Structures are given as structure tokens and as C-alpha cells.
């Protein structure tokens, strides 16, 4: 019984002499393969070459500092609760006297870890953050041989004070 119109009847016809020699078919295949040697490759040689990404690409996270260089994050846990992959964990601590130049509010994140293997780069942490502390940057988390190295701590996430990361484009995504 015919179910659809797409079914094809298989022909059982005998091959001709030229077809039986196979050589023309092999050469035809070779021609296609060799032609590709001289075409532009589909891949890039990462990490020496990086593919261009959108300016609002969601890559590796950054923990922002404010204008005075104090960390914005107060370890409120909203990013962790918003995270669908449960990639974020943190420990809070109380700011001591004399640390006012390091942390903006009386509570700060003593430990802040993102498991980059779990993270799906959805940007919900950024959306949940009430302190504008976490943003996604167009950078990729670097490749590594060891899975444990993909758990990024504050050393890899907090933006360096002398090398600020511009997130104004990501900020625009949320305001528009």
C-alpha cells in the first residue's frame, strides 16, 4: 500500500560496462575532494584565530567593580537562584573596617564560583542581578585539559582594576 507520494521504486536494472569499471565514479569523487583543497576552509584555527562574534555575545562572565574600584557583588544569591543550570555557588562574608575601598556594601562575596561546564550562557544571572555586578562578555572561557579548571573563582571572574571591561552594550540589551 502506498502511504505517501514520496516513495521511490528501486530499479533493479543491470549496470552498463562503464559503470561496472567504477573508475569514472571514483575519479568523479576525487575531483570533488581535490576541489575542496583550494577552497576557503569552514573552520578557523582557534585559539590563534578567533571567529568574530556579535557585540552582545554571551560568553564568559565578569564581576564588575564600580567607578571607585569596589566590587559590586553583595552575594545576594539571586543569580544562583535564577540560574537554570545551577552553575553558580557563593559564600558571603561581612565587610570589616578598613575594607570599604574593596567592597561597596557591608556584605560581599568571599567565594564566588561559576562552573563553566554547567553554565549554558543564557544570561539570566545578569538579568537577575540587582546590583549590576555580573555581566556576560564576548570572551570565551579558555579551553583546558582538566575539568576542575572550569570552575571559575573570583580570581578569574572579577574584572582587573587596571583593565576594566566595557559592558555598556550588554547593559543596553536590558534597558531596551
Amino acid at each position, binding site marked *: 500500500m502506498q502511504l505517501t507520494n514520496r516513495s521511490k521504486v528501486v530499479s533493479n536494472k543491470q549496470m552498463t560496462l562503464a559503470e561496472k569499471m567504477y573508475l569514472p565514479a571514483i575519479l568523479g569523487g576525487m575531483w570533488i575532494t581535490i576541489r575542496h583543497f583550494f577552497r576557503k576552509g569552514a573552520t578557523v584555527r582557534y585559539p590563534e584565530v578567533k571567529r568574530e562574534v556579535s557585540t552582545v555575545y554571551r560568553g564568559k562572565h565578569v564581576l564588575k567593580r564600580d567607578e571607585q574600584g569596589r566590587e559590586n557583588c553583595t*552575594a*545576594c544569591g539571586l543569580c*544562583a*537562584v535564577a540560574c537554570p543550570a545551577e552553575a553558580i555557588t557563593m559564600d*558571603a562574608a*561581612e565587610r570589616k573596617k578598613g575594607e570599604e575601598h574593596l567592597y561597596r*556594601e557591608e556584605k560581599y562575596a568571599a567565594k564566588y564560583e561559576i562552573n563553566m561546564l554547567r553554565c549554558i550562557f543564557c544570561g539570566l544571572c545578569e538579568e537577575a542581578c540587582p*546590583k549590576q555586578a555580573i555581566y556576560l562578555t564576548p570572551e570565551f572561557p579558555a579551553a583546558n585539559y582538566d575539568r576542575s579548571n572550569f570552575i571559575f573563582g573570583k580570581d578569574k571572574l572579577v574584572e582587573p582594576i587596571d583593565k576594566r571591561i566595557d559592558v555598556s552594550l550588554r547593559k543596553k540589551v536590558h534597558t531596551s
Partner: protein
Amino acid sequence: MPKVTIDGRTIEVPEGTTILQAARMIGPEVAPPAMCYYTKLKTSGGYCRTCIVKVAQGSEKDPRPMPKPVPSCRTMVMDGMVVENETSPEIVEARKGVVEFLLANHPLDCPVCDQAGECHLQDLSYEHGAAKSRYEFDRRTFDKINIGPYVQLHMTRCILCYRCVKTAEQITDGRVHGVINRGDHAEISTYVEQAIDNDFSGNVIDVCPVGALTDKTFRFKSRVWFTKPMDAHRDCPTCSGKVVLWYQGEEVLRVTGRKDQWGEVEEFICNECRFEKKKTSDWTIEGPRAIDRHSVISQGQYSGNLEIPAHTKKKLIK
């Protein structure tokens, strides 16, 4: 027995019942929110004005409406009274104004506050408040006061509900803290900055509807929604010993009293249970505490409150 109609639902209540209590007897659908009223504390209520309702008909004998919204926690029911709560747009609007006033001086430091997630002011502003603040002046600030090793006072967050003062007055013997100054300058304080040392002083943490009085031993340890509540009890010589343990992993981070549907503790617990007993071996665990699934605390918890609809149940049993 007087009959009262609240939001179209009639109930017969004993003489001397307040509108708020009558509404709570009907159910949470009609019960007005309350920030300062506390069933277990005498003379509480009447400060915050969040429980205001409209009395459309005073009583059977005198059917005139009351001229202004009345605080339901302090108004007794009369026979034939008709009350409008959520059904009155006027009340919804007025309550929005009350919430705005309560939030006018509130610092909104929820990301830092340990009460976040179980804060009545958060719930109130979420359910009854406006989404945006119109207040653009500096909020009031206070000098920090240390009120002992167990309780942390954040005066900026206080809404002056007087619950803690009444707890200290009625539950503990010999009150050492109260409200000083007046009006906008009013402030919770211990006299001469005395430490609160009383067996039941820790209960001010549980009665506080906001994060003004929080547990110092839990301070910044975790957020409430990352901890798992378990009902537990122990033989305590001073109190009932019925508590909720808040676990993170194997560790008990916090001990609180058991709160009922209205956010009020069922039984006050002593300081020893609350602050000293933080080992599982101190307690007999009864099981996970049922948390309303709309609460943020229930996130990531898959036990309890699972209701199987009747028709599905039949299929499952087959």
C-alpha cells in the same frame, strides 16, 4: 453571635471578634495583610494600617457605612456588618499608599538583608504595592547599636510595628528594650545600650516582620532559599522545644519557631534552643517542613505539598 460579610462571604463569629480575625476564619482569600498585628501579643496592632478595610454597612441596626477605611485588626464586628477588602478599589488604592509610606524610609537593601525571602514587607509590597518608588530624598540613617551577641538590630529597616517591644513586654520578664524618640525619629533601642539577656529574647527575631531584628548567628551565612527547613523537637526544660531547623547540607545554620499560615509563630522558643543547639544530634527530626510552593524558600525542593488531582489518582491506583 454576630454575622459578618467580608468580600461577599458571610460567617458567624463570637462576640468581640475583630474584622481581621473574622476574615482569617474565612480564609486567606479575604484576609487583609497585617504587618503589626500579632495574635499572640496583646494590644498589638493599629500601627501599620496595612489591614485597612472598607465597612460598607456598619451593622443590621445602623446600616450607614463608616466614613473612612478602618484598621480591621482593631475594629470589632457587629451583627450584619458588611466589609469590603480586595473587592473595594478604594481600599486597594489606599493600601498601595500605605505600602508606599512604609517603604519611604525603608533602605531596600534586600540583597544584603538576611530576612529576604521570608520578609513580610517584601510580600506586602509585591502583592499590594506599586512597582516603582516616587521617593527621591535621602532615607533616614541611624548610628549602629550593638544589642548583644545574638540579635542584630538594623534600625534603618524597621517599620515601627512595636511587635518586638510587646514581645519583650509580655513574653520575657523585665523589658530592656523599647522605642525611644517620637514620630520620624522613633527608634528601637535597648536602654543604655544594654544587652538583651533573657531566655526568650530571641523571639523578637521571629516576630519582626522585616529584617530589623535578625539572628546574629545566621548573619550572612546563607540566603533563606538555599536552606532546607526541617521540623524538629527536643526536650527543653524552658520551652516547648518545637522548632524548625534550617539546613544547608549537613549543617544547621539557623533555628526558628514554627510559623503558621499568617507568619506568626505557633509557640515561642527559648534562646538555648535557638542559638545554642545547632547540631543534628541535639534534635529529634520530624521531617521536612511543608512550605507554600509560591514561596521562594520552596525553590529546589521537590518534597511536600504534592497534591495529586482526584481524577489522576484514580488512574494511578488502577
